[in-house]
């Protein structure tokens, strides 16, 4: 969970949506987005603190759970990118090909 953050490290706020657990990020307009590159990046403590009351209100309003602040790689053009394997997987989903439920053909006839 929350590691010690450098004061000026680029950070975002993330959570899971209460109803289905989907990973969401706090956007600049105060909404929650499922896309990390739309998350608002802050680089100083006052900006982060200013975001907090709105996020906490959404926790209380049962919109989101597991609120967390995480460090990101910040590319001013492309937007934030995840730092570390865990956040990469949270942002993009499992790294494996998920099983696909295909109908199963009948057995080949016996030789």
């Amino acid at each position: 969970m929350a590691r010690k953050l450098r004061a000026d490290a680029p950070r975002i706020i993330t959570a899971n949506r209460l109803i289905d657990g989907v990973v969401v990020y706090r956007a600049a307009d105060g909404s929650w987005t499922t896309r990390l590159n739309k998350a608002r990046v802050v680089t100083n403590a006052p900006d982060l603190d200013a975001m907090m009351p709105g996020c906490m209100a959404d926790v209380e309003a049962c919109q989101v759970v597991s609120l967390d602040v995480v460090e990101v790689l910040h590319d001013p053009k492309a937007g934030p990118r995840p730092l570390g394997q865990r956040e990469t997987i949270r942002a993009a989903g499992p790294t494996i090909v998920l099983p696909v439920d295909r109908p199963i053909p009948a057995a080949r006839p016996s030789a």
Partner: protein
Amino acid sequence: MYQYDAHDQALVDQRVSEFRDQVSRRLSGALTEDQFKPLRLMNGLYLQLHAYMLRVAIPYGTLSSHQMRVLAHIARRYDRGYGHFTTRQNIQYNWIKLADAPDILADLAAEQMHAIQTSGNCIRNVTSDPWAGVAADEIEDPRIAAEILRQWSTFHPEFSFLPRKFKIAITGAPTDRAAVKVHDIGLRMHRDERGAVGYEVIVGGGLGRTPIIGKTLRPFLPKEHLLSYLEAIMRVYNTHGRRDNMYKARIKILVEALGIDEFRRQVEAEWEPLRDGALRLPPETYAAITERFAPPLYEQRTGSVATLVRDPETDPALARWVQANVAPHKVPGYGIVNISLKGTGQIPGDATASQMELVAKMADLYSLGEIRVTHEQNLVLPHVRLSDLPALWRTLDAGDLATPNVGLISDIIACPGLDYCSLANARSIPLAQALSERFSDMTRAQAIGPLHINISGCINACAHHHVGHIGVLGVDRKGEELYQITLGGRSDEAAALGRIVGPAVPAHQAIEMIAGFVDTYLAIRHPGELFIDTVERLGTAPFKETLHAAA
């Protein structure tokens, strides 16, 4: 098969409606997450990285074909068309919505299933030998005692808030397929010198952060004292187990702290007033439960798995599958069919809804409607006529369910790891898939012989890596996923913890190390010697040399 009585059904139905109410109060804001979390955990619902995960109990790993179809229906309707069978003989769904959870539990309850006590600091689902009731080497069906324990522990008021979770496993055969020495309590059935059946009671085993092999608390406990004695153990643990530090709260830490002799003294003192009280199990109680596990009506048949394999008329591919996947049954003319959920490159333990339905159909056609889940994350059809094997094999093959690798190197046990699990340090599944590809040659796998690789994504050890012949633990070193390898672990009757070989390495190196260990073993083994026995005979030194040669 065991059927719920009215009492069981009422309890489960009541729990579903309670949970429906709790979920709606959570969604409406009447409950905070802090208030709700313990309630959802009591119903097997976890919040993972991308969604909720629901863990459904499969008591002692036994399922009917109807129940399997319900599991398939849940996968398709509420999840993404698949589920994951776990090392606790349960099934987990990875993509559950909180809002759907009450409906899922209602669908489960209609087929006598639930998610109760799959989480939380209570006595969890009792696990057992997946071949219970059919194994050729069995003394008695261990599910009878497992069911007695299930009834005793379900909603036990005194033991619903233990210092920590509590796991019990039981085996009815001398070959331990239930890993009883690495459970909080392990029960090993055997006979005393007069031929009476009872249990060796093993206590304080466990993996996780502090892996410990369980110690014998009582060499022989007569059957009638099962509940009173376990109640005494639970009371001592409940009173003295540490609640101040979750890492020291399991019974194994208490047993280590007191020493087994002092722990035994306290249990015996607690037991004395209990032993002939209300918890004593008269033969009638055993008989009543035994009836519910009455063996099916088998036909008079002949033949054995071995003769089928040796028969030159048998298709060689079928013979290979039979040799690896079909075990001797206690009744002549029948076999125990193990269905591998470890196809080459597949995710260990995952099955699609269609595969589950195919297994259910095969169970109806060929296994008297019964299915088992193994702690190796495979499935079992326990009562198959040997004459049905060719047809069964062809149908399973069409569903990618006939990989002939049960117990072999590619039958890898792996937890969900960082692809799903919020506690993980590293991924498990991609490494398992890569190893399965690397060892996909089944002729070579059979030449290597029995070899268990277990991969856990963190120290919680859900894949039991400490007791893998080759164990792999994922660690996170400054953001890099590395894998720490151990050798020489085993979970059978000679249970032992693996020893660390070399530093933690990235995945590609871990694969090369393991391949090197296998080559070393093939070069130095005595004829017919198993991998684990070679490691035991020579220690890890010859394997470490491989590492230095490779470096």
